[in-house]
């Protein structure tokens, strides 16, 4: 009997080099190489000395590895008058990033919550206006915002001068840039939060109201604890967006407080002396490190957050 029901045994046979496999993996390898090669060249070049670079073998690994270019890019590369490398720009970017991310997420999460749960007369209209704002090209608003920031500064100066303090500057300062980033993050983040909060069961909100929780009570005690995944998404969006920003950084700040991206540009494009390719490569890699780290750290959290939400319903 046993022999009769015993069919084929062992694992299902697989052919490693079938045509579909070769096509599939072949394509993947080519595409991967296409994207990885520039990165490879950058890393390799950043570890070479200048004489070695001049030999012209772009793809060859460094004969003798040097970290000199990295150190120089960080601490002593020249951008016009300053010769303290990217470090200044790094800290500028950090001081722009932290308040911008916190402020924009804090405001837009409350916005989204209010639009999702506390519908009032005209709330849909308000939301529509906000969405239109998201589709207007930035360039249109660049100059008006220069004027707005300047006028805010002048207006605040009336009080500060009256109180015996100095003149207040908003345009051309870090706080000005923080305001700009917060405003421009608002439409997309509000949309994100509104949709997330709308998807939460409405009865939960009703139950909390019967339980006597108010606008802020429901937000902090009921909604926030359920919104971790969307906060992580918003954080990734904002950190990468603001860190990579170049345009606003150039326009709304001045040389001493330029963010890292602007400073990188100034190092790479500086016209004096020889082009130090190794320093340029190191500087570029250093600038890209922050968004990269954020993706690596929060990417996992992000996926886990979404999965947890899906199971709990």
């Amino acid at each position, binding site marked *: 009997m046993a022999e009769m029901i015993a069919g084929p045994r062992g694992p299902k046979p697989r052919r490693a080099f079938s045509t579909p496999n070769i096509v599939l993996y072949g394509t993947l390898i080519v595409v991967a190489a296409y994207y990885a090669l520039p990165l490879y060249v950058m890393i390799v070049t950043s570890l070479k000395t200048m004489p070695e670079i001049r030999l012209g073998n772009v793809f060859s690994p460094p004969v003798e590895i040097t970290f000199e270019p990295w150190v120089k890019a960080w601490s002593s590369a020249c951008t016009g008058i300053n010769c303290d490398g990217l470090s200044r720009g790094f800290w500028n970017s950090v001081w722009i990033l932290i308040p911008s991310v916190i402020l924009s997420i804090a405001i837009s999460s409350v916005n989204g919550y209010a639009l999702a749960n506390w519908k009032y007369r005209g709330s849909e209209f308000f939301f529509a206006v906000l969405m239109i704002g998201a589709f207007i090209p930035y360039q249109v608003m660049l100059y008006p915002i220069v004027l707005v920031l300047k006028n805010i500064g002048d207006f605040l100066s009336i009080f500060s001068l009256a109180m015996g303090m100095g003149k207040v500057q908003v345009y051309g300062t870090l706080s000005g840039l923080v305001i700009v980033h917060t405003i421009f993050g608002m439409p997309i983040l509000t949309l994100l939060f509104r949709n997330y909060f709308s998807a939460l*069961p409405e*009865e*939960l909100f*009703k*139950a*909390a*109201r*019967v*339980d*006597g*929780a108010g606008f802020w*009570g429901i937000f902090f*005690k*009921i909604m926030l*604890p*359920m919104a971790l995944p969307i906060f992580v998404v918003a954080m990734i969006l904002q950190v990468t967006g603001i860190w990579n920003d170049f345009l606003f950084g150039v326009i709304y700040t001045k040389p001493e407080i330029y963010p890292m991206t602007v400073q990188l540009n100034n190092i790479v494009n500086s016209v004096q002396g020889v082009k130090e390719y190794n320093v340029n490569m190191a500087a570029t890699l250093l600038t890209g490190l922050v968004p990269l780290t954020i993706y690596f750290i929060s990417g996992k959290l992000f996926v886990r957050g979404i999965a947890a939400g899906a199971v*709990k319903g």
Partner: protein
Amino acid sequence: MQHSISVRDLTLKFGAQAVLKTLNLDVAEGEFIVLLGPSGCGKSTLLNCLAGLLDITDGQIWIKGQNVTWAEPSERGIGMVFQSYALYPQMTVRGNLSFGLKNARMPKDEIDKRVARAAEILQIQPLLDRKPGALSGGQRQRVAIGRALVRDVDVFLFDEPLSNLDAKLRSELRVEIKRLHSRLNNTMVYVTHDQIEALTLADRIAVMRGGIIQQLDAPQTIYNRPANLFVAGFIGSPSMNFLHGRTVDGGRTYRIGEVSLDLAGYDGGAVMERDKAILGLRPEHLTIQDHAEPGRTIPAVVEIDEPMGADSLVWLKAGEAQMSVRVPVEDRLEKGRAVHLQVDMTKASIFDAVSEQRV
């Protein structure tokens, strides 16, 4: 007598569409009212208005002699239980029960006392430190009831609390809610589309359609003397048989085709002569017999019989009309057999075909 809940000319409009139309409802102290109707009839909307979760367009709502038309939900002295339980997922059962009390800034020992009492009544003491995610559907709904219970309020509002549960659990919790009501004796307003729940739980049922209360009466009255054609058709499963005929002979005889039925013993108003009148007969108020009795029986032919365990449902064709009759399960009737249906006129309903009202 003071009413526990009193709704005066309540109107609610979403844009131009009126969802509730000048609705009036008085609920006595300790009464169990069920709002029953098909989906979209406005029953849940009415409950949300009572709870203060929807702003009404016009009218007034009084609870316990207070005008609460514009009061916040938490200030109305109500507790509410939702269909999806709506437990706060990040809090333990204890946290869920005490959330409302903490918002009311109640002292901690009083909170503990109330939570303990609610847990004891609903037998959920072992679950107090669990999160809702670790509870079964029935347990979650107990906790949801507990959340209303700890508020120590006079009025409970239930929004289809059992419709997410399976059939067995549903009947268990139904009994439990009834037990809870007889123990606490507070006013309960209960929304459902399940007529069994309505008939078993209610002191009075309000049958709703299109934002209007069609009939507000004790379950037996609703069942036996439905106010109109809609209520008659909505209540009862299988639904009432309707025959389309006319009343003649000064309202003493009902005629459908060649068949005449004597209306003596009809429990209702003046029948009068009507060209179009609908006779409503429930499946259990008909009996199948072999011989005709003039003025008391309708001839019919058996089509299908459906044994349902306790009894059996026989579908017949009487002239044009499709009819169902409930018979003891032993009475098997073969297809095509010609029989006569005896009518119990004392339990019948006659509706005017135009106004659709019972006469």
